């Protein structure tokens, strides 16, 4: 088969540091092609060269056999290469239609924008995806999933030959992912190639035809997905032996083997305006309690209520000291921490240094005569940079310059520095590469062994099943069952969630 895109011998360096070296990538028309690799493996650099954001230093890009000279994103778009970014680059305040046709609006005889035709065209494309929305409404009034589909609709409307999806599913729930995948299949059938970048290996097996693995700025191999195993892919990504990885498991967690201590926190029959309708969780010392359930089942809401972020309308949260928790400051004072799901929005303070980001929550305790004790602050920051192996040029480096995995470690350090009794971890390894994921999981395991209690929320069943000592299953804001490790399997967890679901529907 003739390749649609052929990138050969691509090299790129930034200020003398090599980002890509002799990299090759071939994409066939109408295939779903995945690129996987750890953060820093060169995935995004390669994509940005293909989409005209960066210029390559060496190598060649061909499209349908002809050399392709692209130096701006607009040229890439005109050549038929469309990109759907992780952070959507659409205009939320304008209508769905405007977002789809912007820059390429259909005109009438007077040369004015033909809105009727534009709306019809937008409606028609979205209908093909099985999406029925009011295209005249503001894009921002729809969910992220719809917005993502609109971005794809824009690509289709521009007659793209290749659609690049960068971490497209990272903020979607299961049902939305299903819709997205059917759209991807739809694209494939109509001959459009999809380049798919994801940290979730499971997704690969569900929709991708072929996979290219990148490591250290090179493409290591390309396989037919059907002929690979998850373990094989991970070992190629990490450059480590498959057997070595198998020995430690797919996650660095192992629940159900510790000896939980006394009860630290009891949340009973929590109800709230955020959708809790009777959720109960008990957390003991030295244990990891998982919160299982679909997105929207009330996992994050339960955690927020426990931390005093959202007021309860019923039920109660009792700390073992016998105190009710009403706000985050109080929760922190009682020895709790909350590593939030959205690292960018309510985690890092981007302009601040690694040092400042680590010490921020601890500041009230670092005061000496009203001023921040800088010497202690530096010692503390250095301690955690070493202990968690945070890769940074120094504690004064702004946190925004760190990779996702290292940012997450800094945030983990922030909470560990408070020496909490209970730590709530909401998707602690989402969007970080496999290597950092292992490291973060081992840090958590070590802390739990030393007495920390963890409330773990994760969309990855693997992480819950292998990690948690107990899993509380939530459904529509209610806690409906509890699974006890050892002995929990992924199937059992899925069964528990699905079973309850069926019963509720019936």
């Amino acid at each position: 088969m003739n390749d649609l895109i052929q990138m050969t011998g691509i090299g790129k360096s930034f200020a003398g540091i090599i980002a890509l070296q002799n990299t090759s990538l071939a994409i066939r028309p109408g295939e779903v092609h995945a690129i996987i690799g750890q953060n820093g493996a060169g995935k995004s650099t390669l994509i940005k060269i293909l989409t005209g954001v960066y210029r390559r230093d060496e190598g060649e890009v061909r499209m349908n056999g002809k050399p392709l000279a692209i130096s701006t994103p607009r040229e890439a778009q005109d050549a038929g290469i469309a990109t759907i970014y992780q952070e959507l680059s659409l205009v939320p305040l304008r209508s769905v239609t405007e977002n789809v046709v912007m820059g390429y609006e259909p005109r009438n005889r007077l040369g004015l924008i033909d809105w009727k035709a534009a709306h019809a065209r937008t409606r028609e494309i979205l209908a093909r995806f099985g999406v029925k929305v009011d295209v005249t409404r503001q894009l921002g009034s729809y969910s992220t999933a719809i917005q993502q589909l609109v971005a794809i609709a824009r690509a289709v409307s521009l007659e793209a030959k290749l659609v690049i999806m960068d971490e497209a599913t990272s903020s979607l729930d299961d049902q939305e992912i299903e819709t997205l995948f059917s759209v991807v299949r739809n694209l494939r059938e109509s001959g459009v190639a999809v380049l798919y970048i994801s940290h979730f290996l499971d997704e690969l097996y569900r929709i991708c035809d072929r996979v290219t693995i990148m490591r250290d700025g090179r493409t290591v191999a390309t396989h037919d997905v059907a002929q690979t195993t998850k373990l094989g892919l991970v070992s190629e990504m990490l450059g480590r032996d498959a057997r070595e990885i198998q020995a430690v498991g797919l996650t660095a967690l192992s629940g159900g083997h510790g000896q939980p201590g006394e009860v630290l926190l009891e949340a009973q029959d929590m109800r709230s305006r955020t959708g809790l309708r009777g959720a109960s969780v008990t957390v003991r010392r030295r244990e990891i309690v998982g919160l299982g359930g679909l997105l929207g089942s009330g996992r994050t809401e339960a955690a927020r209520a426990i931390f005093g972020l959202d007021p309860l309308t019923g039920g109660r949260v009792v700390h073992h000291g016998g105190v009710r928790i009403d706000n985050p400051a109080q929760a922190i004072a009682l020895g709790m921490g909350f590593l939030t799901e959205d690292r960018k929005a309510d985690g890092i303070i981007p302009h601040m240094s690694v040092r400042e980001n680590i010490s921020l929550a601890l500041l009230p305790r670092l005061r000496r005569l009203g001023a921040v004790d800088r010497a202690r602050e530096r010692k503390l920051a250095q301690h955690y940079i070493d202990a968690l192996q945070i890769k940074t040029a120094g504690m004064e480096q702004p946190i925004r310059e760190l990779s996702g995995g290292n940012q997450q470690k800094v945030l983990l350090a922030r909470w560990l520095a408070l020496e909490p009794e209970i730590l709530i971890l909401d998707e602690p390894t989402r969007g970080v590469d496999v290597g950092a994921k292992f490291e973060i999981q081992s840090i958590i395991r070590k802390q739990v062994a030393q007495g920390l209690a963890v409330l773990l929320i994760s969309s990855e069943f693997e992480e819950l099943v292998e990690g948690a000592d107990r899993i509380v299953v939530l459904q529509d804001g209610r806690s409906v069952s509890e699974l006890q490790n050892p002995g929990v399997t992924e199937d059992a967890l899925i069964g528990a969630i699905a079973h309850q679901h069926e019963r509720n529907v019936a």
Partner: protein
Amino acid sequence: MADTNTFDLRRYLKGGGHSFGVWAALVIVVLFGLMRYDNFGGAYNISSFLNYNAMFIVISVGMCFVILTGGIDLSVGSVAAFTSVVAAYLSPYGIQVALPGAVLAGLAIGGLNAFFVVAMRIPPFIATLATMLGAKGGALVISGAQTIAIDWESNFTKLGMEKAFGLLPWTIVITAVVVVALWIVLEFTSLGRTVLAVGGGEDATMMMGLGVARAKVFVYLLSGGCGGLAGVFLASGFGAGQPLEGVGWELSAIASVVVGGTLLTGGMGSVAATVAGALLLGLVFNILNFENGRGVISLSAYWQMVIRGGFLFAVILLQSQLTTRTRRAAE
């Protein structure tokens, strides 16, 4: 290790890399003035320059704190006009009453801003626009739209004229004390760090249990208080309460803050660079006055404003060029 305890100048300069442009421009302008005009470096010029610009420095520093939280305070000019009238009315009781009285009046308006922004959740731009109009109206009402002469018999007049410890006018000394105190607050206290954190990410700061509301109340009170102090300086400098003054001061203050490299979105900036920004904008007028004094050219106040605008643009351009270059070098 010495590293943890000593003040590392190199690290400090590196951390303040975004404000390098304003310092460079300040040095260039000062050198230019020293070489071109005989009396530029003279004690009289320095003293009168600082005396006049003290009020702008004070409101700029207050504004800097507000902007660091991601807010804005449009009311400072009106606050200064209002409190200058308050100070003039109180001047017969002496400086020991007039100064605290005017500052309290400023704090009251700042408190109102804080209430609107923090308790009522009104966007700062709107809230302070309202108090800007209100304070302006208040100043006109209590003064009957007339300048209110200060009591020349009282010790209020000493503020801008008598030298503290025989060195510098009181105005300059008070300004220096305020600036140093606020520099310490921002750089060395957890309150200062919280102010920066709020501007960098309010949700994250709240999640960490830090006092977001407290930090915001602090910055609006501070800005109001700074406006009150500026009102005192205004009254003493002009010998009268000036209800019609203060128009556009908030924009000058914002300009000083921005020239100093503080991000308008908050989260990053410095007190020292803001002072440098205020000095720089003041110096442009100072130099144009000298130029007019040479008799070769004669620029009206209107043209001076145009030139100041162009200069502001040039400094910000220099600033952004330097920032992108250092960022590229870092990558």
